[in-house]
C-alpha cells in the first residue's frame, strides 16, 4: 500500500516546510478552500473515516454535530496526548510529518468555521513540542496559518498546549478541562463537547492520526478513500508494535490487516523465534488475546467479535517466557496511579484489584483470590464516568479468562508454601 500518513518520513528533513511542499503538501488545503465548508464535512462523512484515538466514532458525523450548533466561536482540538501504554503511533507524525497535522487542522478549522485550534500534546514528548512549534512558525510565515490564509481571507490560529503527565487527559472531556487550566477530570456527558466543549463552546476533539487523514481524503476524494481497507471503517491505520517482535515500530497498513500479518510479515516474527503466548492488540486497556486468536482483522468492526478492541492500534507482543500475571499487575498498577479519583468504583476498586494482584504475583495469593478479582472487576464495570474504570475491569477479566491457569499456578504455589 502506498503510504500517506508516514509519507516522506524517512527523509532527513521531512519536518521542514519546503520538503513537505515538494512532496505535494498543502495542496489539499487549497483544494478544500475551493469548496464550501459544509461540502468538506460531507466529503469526510462520505469517506467513512472513523476516529483513530480508540473509540472509532465517525469523524464526519462528529463534525456535523458541531457545525449544526449555532454557538460561536467553535474550536478544533487535536488530541496528541497518546498516553495509552504501548502507543507511539502519533509520534512519527508529530516529529517527522508535522505539516501534515497542521494542514489537517487548518482544513478542519475551515470546514467547521473555527478560527482557533489547539494541539494538546503529551508532556512526555518534549522533542515533538520543539518540532511542532517550529513547524507552526513556518506555516505562519508562509501564510498557511494566520488571518488571511492563502490570500483567501480564511482565519485560523494554532497553538501547542503541553500536557503534564496525566493519562486521563487523553479522555476528551478531561482534555478540555486541562486545556482550560483545570485538573484533568472527565465531565458528565451530555452535554457533549461538540455542543459545550472548550470554554462552553462547540468543540471538535480529534486524534492526531484522524486529523492527518483529512488532507488525504480531500486529496484523493471520498470514493477512492473508502476503498482502502475494510469498507465499514476504511482508510490507512497506524499500528505501533512493541514487545517481543524482531522489528518493533510504527507501520502504516490498511485498516483490517490481521494481527498475524502485522506480527509475522511486517515485524519479522517473534524475537529469537520463540513461541507467541499473548497479544494486547490496542493499548494496555484493551483485552488481551491468546496466541490462537491472531487471525482477527484489526479494525473497529471485527475486533469486538474476537473479544477485544482495536483501541489505538498499539500491539504489544508477549513470547512464551512472559509471566502474564506480572503483566496484568503492572497494567493495573498503572491504572490505579492514573485514576483521577472522581468515581468511587474506579478510585477504590482499581486499588483493590492492584492489592489482590500484588498478593498473587508476589507469592502470597489465597484460595478464592482469582474469583475475588472477577467480583471486584464486575463492581467497577459500567459504574464510572469515563472508560478508565471499565478498562481496568476488562484487563483483569480478559487475563483471567484466557490465562486463568497461570493465576492458579501462582496461588497454588503460595498456598502450598503457606501450609
Amino acid at each position: 500500500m502506498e503510504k500517506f500518513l508516514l509519507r516522506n518520513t524517512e527523509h532527513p528533513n521531512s519536518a521542514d516546510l519546503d520538503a513537505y511542499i515538494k512532496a505535494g503538501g498543502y495542496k489539499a488545503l487549497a483544494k478544500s478552500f475551493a469548496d464550501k465548508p459544509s461540502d468538506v464535512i460531507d466529503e469526510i462523512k462520505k469517506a467513512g473515516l472513523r476516529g483513530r484515538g480508540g473509540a472509532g466514532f465517525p469523524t464526519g458525523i462528529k463534525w456535523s454535530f458541531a457545525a449544526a450548533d449555532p454557538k460561536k466561536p467553535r474550536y478544533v482540538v487535536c488530541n496528541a496526548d497518546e498516553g495509552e501504554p504501548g502507543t507511539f503511533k502519533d509520534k512519527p507524525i508529530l516529529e517527522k510529518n508535522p505539516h501534515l497535522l497542521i494542514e489537517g487542522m487548518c482544513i478542519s478549522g475551515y470546514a467547521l468555521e473555527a478560527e482557533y485550534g489547539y494541539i494538546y500534546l503529551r508532556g512526555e514528548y518534549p522533542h515533538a513540542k520543539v518540532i511542532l512549534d517550529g513547524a507552526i512558525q513556518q506555516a505562519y510565515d508562509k501564510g498557511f496559518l494566520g488571518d488571511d490564509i492563502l490570500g483567501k481571507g480564511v482565519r485560523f490560529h494554532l497553538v501547542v498546549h503541553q500536557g503534564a503527565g496525566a493519562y486521563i487527559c487523553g479522555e476528551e472531556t478531561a482534555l478540555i478541562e486541562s486545556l482550560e487550566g483545570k485538573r484533568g477530570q472527565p465531565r458528565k456527558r451530555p452535554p457533549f463537547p461538540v455542543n459545550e466543549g472548550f470554554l462552553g463552546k462547540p468543540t471538535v476533539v480529534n486524534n492526531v492520526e484522524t486529523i492527518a487523514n483529512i488532507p488525504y481524503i480531500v486529496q484523493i476524494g471520498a470514493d477512492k478513500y473508502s476503498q482502502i481497507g475494510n469498507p465499514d471503517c476504511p482508510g490507512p491505520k497506524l499500528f505501533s508494535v512493541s514487545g517481543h517482535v524482531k522489528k518493533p515500530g510504527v507501520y502504516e497498513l490498511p485498516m483490517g490487516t490481521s494481527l498475524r500479518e502485522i506480527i509475522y510479515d511486517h515485524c519479522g516474527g517473534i524475537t529469537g523465534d520463540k513461541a507467541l503466548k499473548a497479544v494486547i492488540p490496542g493499548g494496555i486497556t484493551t483485552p488481551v488475546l491468546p496466541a490462537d486468536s491472531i487471525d482477527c482483522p484489526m479494525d473497529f468492526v471485527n475486533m469486538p467479535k474476537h473479544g477485544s478492541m482495536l483501541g489505538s492500534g498499539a500491539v504489544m507482543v508477549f513470547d512464551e517466557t512472559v509471566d502474564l500475571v506480572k503483566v496484568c499487575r503492572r497494567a493495573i498498577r498503572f491504572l490505579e496511579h492514573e485514576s483521577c479519583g472522581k468515581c468511587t468504583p474506579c478510585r477504590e476498586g482499581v486499588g483493590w484489584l492492584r492489592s489482590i494482584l500484588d498478593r498473587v504475583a508476589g507469592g502470597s495469593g489465597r484460595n478464592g483470590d482469582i474469583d475475588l478479582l472477577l467480583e471486584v472487576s464486575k463492581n467497577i464495570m459500567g459504574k464510572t464516568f469515563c472508560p478508565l474504570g471499565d478498562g481496568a475491569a476488562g484487563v483483569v477479566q480478559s487475563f483471567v479468562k484466557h490465562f486463568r491457569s497461570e493465576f492458579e499456578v501462582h496461588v497454588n504455589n503460595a498456598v502450598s508454601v503457606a501450609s
Partner: protein
Amino acid sequence: MLSDKALNEIHLIKSKYQDSRSCLLPSLYVVQKENGWISPAAMETVGELLSVPDATVKGVATFYSMFRREAMGRHLIQLCTNVACMIMGAERLVDILRDKYGLQPNGTSADGRFSLVIMECIGACDAAPAMLVDADLHGNINENTIMATLDKYA
C-alpha cells in the same frame, strides 16, 4: 521572584489564548523551566498574573505528575517501567540506579546530580527499555550501557 524573561513569556502566552485561566499549564511550565521546580511562592505569582486563586493553582499543580513541587537534581532521569519496558528489563535498571547512584524513585542523589522519576509510558516502546534524561530520549538501554549514557550528564 520570576525573571523578566519568564514574565514576558507568560505575557506572550496570554496573547495566544482566549482566556487567562487556560494559560495556567503553559505558565507553570515557564516557571518550571526557569527554576527546575514550582515553589509555593511561584504558584502565588502565577495566580496573580492570571487572576486565578492561589488554591486553584495549587490544586492544578499537584494534579499533574510532571510538575515538580520540590527542587530537583541537575539532571532529571525519567525512566519508564510500564509493560513494554518492564518485559525488556526496566526493573533491573531501577536496581542499578539505586546501587550505583544511590537513587531512589522520586529521590535525588546525594551530590545533587540526578533525580529519578518512574514514568508510566513515554511512548518509546519500540526502543524499550527507554528513559528521558532532561529532554533527551535514550532507548534500548541496558545494564551495560546505562552508566555510560548517564556519564555524559555532569
